[in-house]
């Protein structure tokens, strides 16, 4: 984001994003697709250069669930593998971790900070995904300048994180831990099926995995079939990869 939009423009975009997600939530939506929409909105609305979303795996670890760019994916994976970083601390504490200037965090998270600074990032803001007492993950915003996240941006980020939580758990009124586990574990496994499907489409259509993902999402939208359903069909041989090719517009326009 090179130019900052005016207040009115931002307001309008904010409204559009929430309307779009609310529309998705009342429909038969796919969690993985929704989370990718969500990280894209974060980039757009919060002047972030990139955004990622992590979920707990309920075995003491974290899994990356959505990311806006390959660079963000790498930085999120470093945190998971090294078990350090603002996003890891955010999930463990259940509180936002707002790092305005990463240069001051070198001692706290040496490996992550070194990589993030090398990649040109200056700030990281991690917002927890919470449902009552449970923290199920974190939404992470990466910025290029060492500036604090304005208070209204924090509010928007929290609202987006809440939307993500509700979207992932697919039920606002989860009072029972076992339902949370059913939803979360299913979402994590569907994420794997989508990776398998990306591999199929990328090989069959000779695309890189990001373009393969775009083709899958486009096919999902055009045919109104959930992404994870398409993935399962592709992997089990019930859907041929050329069907995805035939019905998808050529990728690379960022769609």
């Amino acid at each position, binding site marked *: 984001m090179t130019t900052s939009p005016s207040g009115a423009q931002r307001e309008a975009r904010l409204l559009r994003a929430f309307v779009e997600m609310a529309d998705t939530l009342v429909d038969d939506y796919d969690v993985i697709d929704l989370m990718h929409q969500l990280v894209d909105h974060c980039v757009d609305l919060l002047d972030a250069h990139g955004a990622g979303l992590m979920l707990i*795996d*309920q*075995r*003491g*670890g*974290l*899994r*990356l669930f959505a990311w806006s760019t390959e660079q963000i994916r790498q930085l999120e*994976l470093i945190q*998971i*593998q090294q*078990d350090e970083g603002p996003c890891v601390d955010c999930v*463990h504490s*259940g509180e936002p971790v707002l790092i305005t200037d990463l240069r001051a965090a070198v001692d706290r998270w040496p490996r992550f900070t070194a990589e993030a600074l090398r990649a040109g990032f200056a700030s990281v803001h991690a917002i927890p995904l919470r449902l009552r*007492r*449970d*923290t199920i993950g974190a939404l992470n915003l990466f910025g290029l300048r060492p500036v604090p996240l304005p208070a209204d941006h924090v509010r928007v980020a929290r609202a987006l994180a809440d939307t993500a939580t509700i979207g992932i758990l697919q039920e606002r009124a989860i009072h*029972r*831990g*076992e*339902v949370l*586990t*059913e939803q979360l*574990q*299913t979402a994590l*496994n*569907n994420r*794997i*099926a*989508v*990776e*398998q*499907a*990306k*591999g*199929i*489409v*990328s*090989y*069959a259509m000779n695309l890189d*995995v990001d373009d393969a993902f775009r083709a899958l999402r486009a096919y999902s939208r055009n045919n109104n079939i959930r992404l994870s359903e398409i*993935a*399962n069909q*592709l*992997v*089990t*041989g019930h859907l041929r*990869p050329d069907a995805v090719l035939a019905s998808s517009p050529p990728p690379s326009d960022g769609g």
Partner: protein
Amino acid sequence: MSDPGDINELVERVRAALFAIVRDHHDELDAVKQLCEASTELLPIDGASISISLGPQLRNTLHASDAVGNRIESLQFSLGEGPCFESFEFRRPVLVPDLANFTTREWPVFATELARMRIGAIFAFPMQRGAIRIGVVDFYRVRPGWLSPGELAAALEVVEIATLLLLNAQSGTTTALYRPTRRLDHEQVHQATGVLIAAFDMSAEEALARLRAYAFANDQLVDDVARDIMARRLSPQDLVDEP
């Protein structure tokens, strides 16, 4: 939510116990059976049973830790319904901590049978890798109640290691189990599985088995083989030419 430190500690303890079993049993299926037995000691449950699939259907019970577990499985198989079938079909955990206050459209007959057996809770966890379905682990307990976060983490660890063992049994490998799996992301393994499916029109099970067998034969990590395939440093053809 309890302190993640506690969860890690408990998971480490459970994992150490399970790895000891794996070390002492060279046959994967034997190890899975022992794991099933051990889970009744490691978790606050009264019994466990494991059923496995061949292709798109749940085929048979590999092991049950006791007579009740056996009955739970055989009833489900004879009725063709139950939490384990639901879990397999919908690829998701089916968790019922309080059977007495539970109604289900998915398995009404089995629910009635269970009520007679004085079982308080039943938890069915699918063993799967994305679209690859391996089977289901059923845990039951006489007293109703859900698991604490630490107990849940331990239960998921049992399911994960059983899944890995059965994947090993499919591919004739043993390496992947002996390195920490908790914090690693395996997305390229899943993508490379997809590549092999598309390249050779093989099943996902076979594709993953091929990937793991190649890594094992070449003394490499599956993640590294997968990364090479996705970076096009290694051709899918190289994996099938291997004897």
